[in-house]
């Protein structure tokens, strides 16, 4: 694994900057004045009730959703209407989805090599070598020639993580990566994510796995109704949150 902090980049400047970001779906104000700086190597966990805008927020960071006001700057590139910028950012930002979104007509290995070959113009041989390395890291090299439909949910999600990593991204976004999994498969995916965090990857995770959050998060963000309501270290967030809304939410998800 190469070092996450690449040469020639200032490790003290934020790698993601959101300044006054606003977004509407029709008349519905889904993101309200979001300001967020993410440092290189930082792990951020975003939580909040459904419909609070947390998925929309991270989908704005790789321009799967368009923001209407404010600035989003990723690794020095501002996301605007310029498709060149958007594609540049997407090459550096990996994303893992709730529904895995693997390509069902391609084998696991082909899923992992498709983008490196066509986007990074890697040779098939090199791409396969890198893909096998990552498949080993997510502990499924033996499934390389199977199709996604032949794998369990947990295995599919690990393939999805490997597929993203094959593009050698600077930043990884996780959009509720364990929400569609059977309970006994959640751990195998979280273990891979924890490993990734320990290696210094910059990560933003939308998740309700509070155990995971306590283990890896440098910073917790709680969102409600499109705004950031609370932003704190895990210790403060779980033991001594400021806002009533956070307390209420934590009460609901932690008691059982």
């Amino acid at each position, binding site marked *: 694994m190469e070092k996450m902090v690449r040469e020639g980049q200032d490790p003290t400047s934020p790698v993601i900057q959101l300044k006054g970001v606003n977004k509407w779906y029709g008349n519905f104000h889904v993101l309200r004045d979001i300001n967020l700086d993410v440092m290189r190597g930082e792990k951020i966990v975003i939580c909040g009730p459904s419909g609070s805008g947390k998925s929309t927020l991270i989908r704005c960071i790789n321009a*799967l959703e368009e923001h209407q006001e404010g600035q989003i700057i990723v690794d020095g590139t501002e996301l605007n209407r310029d498709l060149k910028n958007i594609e540049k950012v997407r*090459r550096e930002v990996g*994303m893992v*989805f709730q*529904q895995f*979104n693997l*390509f*069902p*007509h391609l084998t696991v290995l082909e899923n992992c090599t498709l983008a490196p070959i066509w986007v990074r113009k890697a040779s098939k041989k090199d791409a396969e070598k890198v893909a096998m390395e990552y498949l080993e890291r997510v502990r499924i090299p033996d499934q390389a020639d199977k199709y996604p439909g032949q794998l369990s949910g947990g295995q599919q999600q690990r393939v999805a993580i490997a597929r*993203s990593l094959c593009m050698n991204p600077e930043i990884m976004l996780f959009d509720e990566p364990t929400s569609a999994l059977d309970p006994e498969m959640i751990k195998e995916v979280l273990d891979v994510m924890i490993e990734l965090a320990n290696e210094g990857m910059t990560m933003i995770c939308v998740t309700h796995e509070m155990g995971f959050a306590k283990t890896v998060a440098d910073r917790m963000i709680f969102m409600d109704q499109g705004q950031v309501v609370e932003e704190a270290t895990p210790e403060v967030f779980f033991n001594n949150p400021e806002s009533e809304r956070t307390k209420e939410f934590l009460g609901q998800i932690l008691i059982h």
Partner: protein
Amino acid sequence: MEQKMIPAREPPVNSRGILGWARENLFASPSQSLVTLALLYGLYLFIPPFWQWAVMDASWTGSSRSDCTTEGACWAFVTARLDQFIYGFYPDSEIWRVNLFFAQLAVVLGWLMIPRIPGKKMALVIGLLVLPVTSWLILTGSLLGLPPVETHQWGGLMVTLVLALYGMLASLPVGVLLALGRRSSMPVVRTFCTAYIELWRGVPLITVLFMASVMLPLFVPEEIVFDKLVRAMIGIVMFQSAYMAEVVRGGLQAIPRGQVEACQSLGMGYWQSMLLVVLPQAIRLVIPGIVNTFIALFKDTSLVLVIGLFDLLSIVQAGLNDPQWLGSAVEGYLFAGFVFWLFCFGMSQYSQRLEKH
């Protein structure tokens, strides 16, 4: 409570021979028995006499209707004119070129259809890109230094196959582009594609062919008016690609949004996502619809008879007017119908095999 796990067992055997099958499926209830018997009786009424007429009492060779028996079918009409039905008015000395065209077609189709032969992708590339070019060069001849054969000398089965081949090869990609265009986020592209599809789908093919052969020369300067066959071909492609577009669009809509998002998040552009991820899945989903359109296209080529092109059906029809063969209409149409059916059934079988893979 069971203490032990129940071991897995074989499922019960439920086949009990032909009689058991017949009792279960054909004579399970009195009303079902009645329907079965009625249908069997219907077949008994129809098949033996038809067999007697078409095979037993039939005459197979001869040079005019009077050589045939009166009880049976007069296939002599077909055998005597078979060359014309296949090659039209293609000069006798050049017929090897048509045979070469058929042979290429057979080789590529065999390559694609026989599972054991490797290199399907290669076969597809040859079939889609090389075959149309070489076929055209061989059949027209002039560019290869062969004696040129004008398309008005073409006829019969070869015209049917030429129209169908080029129609299919062109209408699928054009249809795919139109389908993508109709789902585009660019308003101009979307409006154009929607308008195109709705316009061509709303017009009968006969009208399109008439327009292509009668109207077009009125508006287009004489020097650039091209060949009648090519015009008919363009008309067919314009028309069928509109249908194809809607079939493909159905497939595109069945692909979850997440597939495109996954492509985007990996930095892939629009065309890469479409060509590598979305279309391969969408096309596979709509193979039945595509083949359905292909079969319709194949049969619709026979409509070119209204603009004076001699495809298989119209050349058979023309033969019926020969005084020597008066009264051979039934045999002629049966033959033409049988040939069309043979090709369409073949396509349908191939598509069923494709779907399974």
